[in-house]
């Protein structure tokens, strides 16, 4: 045990002094993630606002109908109405970017409406990546016009508008706000921490095994009167610590980002804060431990097998996709924690975290997740220890 502490202490100092590891473990999740999140949110909000405030150039062809509608459009803030468009050229005007949209009122619109039938209003627009704001804003104008026509029609017929409303649907969502938010956004939290946990553990694992082999320090370390298991355990503990620290720092980074972005409603922030109570945080972190042990075992096994730092990097980097995939699946709708998904590593942790945050976790399923991860962590750790004992692994290529 004493030697384990000695190795652990030395590896920790060595790791903390490695700028690359420190960057991926602390700086990246703590500074860059909030920064990226803040910038992306601000750009998104600003582009949304711009799209809402943009002056839309609308070609209007009324064919002498819908005078009130035309007047409403003329008065509407943010629209520039262009007359004298030939309906057949509507598409080419939009494609040439001379106009954003064209509204064509049917030739017999007024007479159709007067005869209590439906009049046609054709809206030409181009789907775009600016939140389809042209369509949304002009649809709102047309809906408003239809509403006033409908009201006039019912008034003329001396009828109450309510007679066409045969069913009054009343929705009662029994899910609490915490549950709704937890299920919708809760999946993002494990997505982040699983990735950062892996990334945070990756560089120490490479440095403490492949790096040590490459520098020639492994050979001399193995001549010290310490069992290989204790050496591995010391390294292992540092890799696990780095992974956990990185994941925790990434959550802290996300928390800071949420606090920093003013565009997020205050009520939503309060909801997020109320969700992250002590018990939830402890449960989430307790799930993180076996995941990190599993990651550390896999990463160290590969790293110790590699002949050099570079080879370890090329062996380990593709693994990040394998790790991201189950975490991504957990974010998708339709995937829930059940007796089968509870046995799929990483996916089970991501889904369980989602349920914990939403406050809907079932005790038996959580136990199954813990059990699965505990077995996996133990087996991978045992495998890593056996792997470390092999001469062919340690002295591969020498």
């Amino acid at each position, binding site marked *: 045990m*004493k030697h384990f502490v*000695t190795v652990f202490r030395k590896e920790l100092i060595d790791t903390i*002094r490695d700028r690359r590891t420190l960057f991926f473990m602390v700086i990246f999740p703590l500074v860059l993630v909030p920064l990226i999140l803040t910038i992306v949110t601000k750009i998104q909000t600003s582009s949304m606002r711009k799209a809402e405030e943009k002056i839309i150039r609308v070609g209007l062809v009324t064919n002498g109908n819908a005078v009130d509608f035309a007047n409403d459009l003329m008065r509407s803030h943010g629209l520039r109405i262009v007359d004298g468009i030939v309906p057949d050229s509507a598409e080419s005007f939009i494609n040439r970017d001379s106009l954003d949209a064209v509204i064509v009122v049917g030739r017999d619109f007024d007479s159709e409406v007067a005869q209590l039938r439906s009049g046609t209003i054709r809206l030409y627009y181009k789907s775009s990546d600016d939140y389809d704001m042209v369509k949304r804003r002009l649809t709102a104008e047309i809906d408003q016009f239809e509403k006033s026509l409908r009201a006039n029609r019912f008034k003329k017929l001396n009828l109450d508008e309510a007679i066409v409303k045969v069913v009054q649907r009343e929705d009662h969502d029994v899910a609490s706000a915490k549950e709704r938010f937890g299920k919708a956004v809760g999946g993002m939290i494990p997505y982040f921490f699983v990735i950062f946990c892996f990334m945070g553990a990756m560089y120490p694992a490479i440095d403490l095994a492949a790096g040590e082999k490459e520098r*020639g320090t492994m050979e*001399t370390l193995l*001549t*010290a*009167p310490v069992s290989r298991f204790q050496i591995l355990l010391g390294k292992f503990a540092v890799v696990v610590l780095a992974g956990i620290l990185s994941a925790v720092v990434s959550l802290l980074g996300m928390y800071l980002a949420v606090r920093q972005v003013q565009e997020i409603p205050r009520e939503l922030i309060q909801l997020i804060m109320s969700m992250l109570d002590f018990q939830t945080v402890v449960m989430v972190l307790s799930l993180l431990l076996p995941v990190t042990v599993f990651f550390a075992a896999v990463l160290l096994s590969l790293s110790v097998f590699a002949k050099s730092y570079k080879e370890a990097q090329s062996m380990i980097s593709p693994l990040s996709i394998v790790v991201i995939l189950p975490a991504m699946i957990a974010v998708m709708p339709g995937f829930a924690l059940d007796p089968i998904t509870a046995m799929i590593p990483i996916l089970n942790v991501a889904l369980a975290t989602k349920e914990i945050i939403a406050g809907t976790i079932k005790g038996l399923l959580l136990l199954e997740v813990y059990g699965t991860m505990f077995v996996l962590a133990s087996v991978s750790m045992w495998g890593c220890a056996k792997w470390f004992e092999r*001469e062919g692994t340690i002295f591969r290529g020498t």
Partner: protein
Amino acid sequence: MIAIEHLTKTFKISRQQRRDMGPGFTSTTVDAVHDVSFTCNPGRVFTLLGPNGAGKTTALRLIATMLQPTTGSITVMGVNVVKEPVEARKRMGFLTGNTGLYDRLTPDEMVKYYADLHDMDATTYKRRRDEIFTLLGIHEFAKQRIAKLSSGMKQKVSIARTIIHDPDVVVFDEPTAALDVITSRSIIQLIKNCRAQNKTVIFSTHRMGEVSLLSDDLAIIHHGSLIFNGTFKVFQNQMQTDSIEDEFVRLVEAA
């Protein structure tokens, strides 16, 4: 003292390695060390001489317990290295040409790390550290990061790490292979000091100058087997050529 009897180390080889060895090589294994026996005595320097790939490093790694013998036995100061590897390591220091230091530690931290791994008590450590640091002139850069040190300084730290626990046996695996002449001298001096302190010293080399300068006993290894084992004096007396180098080449070619 190191006693080696009928030591063999067999490695499995991959298909690629087999292909590299040529079409005539069909075996799935290779003996890196084959039926080797010798004894290294205290107060004497035992030189293991051989061309590249002869099995020198494998033999030294077996002594240092990094590898396990396939057959045969090794005892270090009476301790069987297979049965009690940790006990054997307590009595050994190991130094290679590659300094084997951690760039992000300081010399102080580096040497303390190995002292802790050897369970040295604080008083003994302090005394040994002061003695060695003074002897090698490490004090002035003891607090600097190793990455910033010159190769000569690094080698001094490496020496300090090797002997901090005052081992009875010191194993040197081509200790001067990657060093310049001036830095090599500190290693040669260390080997001489170890001999003077009645330690058992085994070192591998392919530098003939070092052989004549240091050897009390000599073994020449080729393709994993010993082709000469005796005192350096006997070797000199049996020489059929004018120089050690020529004699070495003659023996290797005749084997």
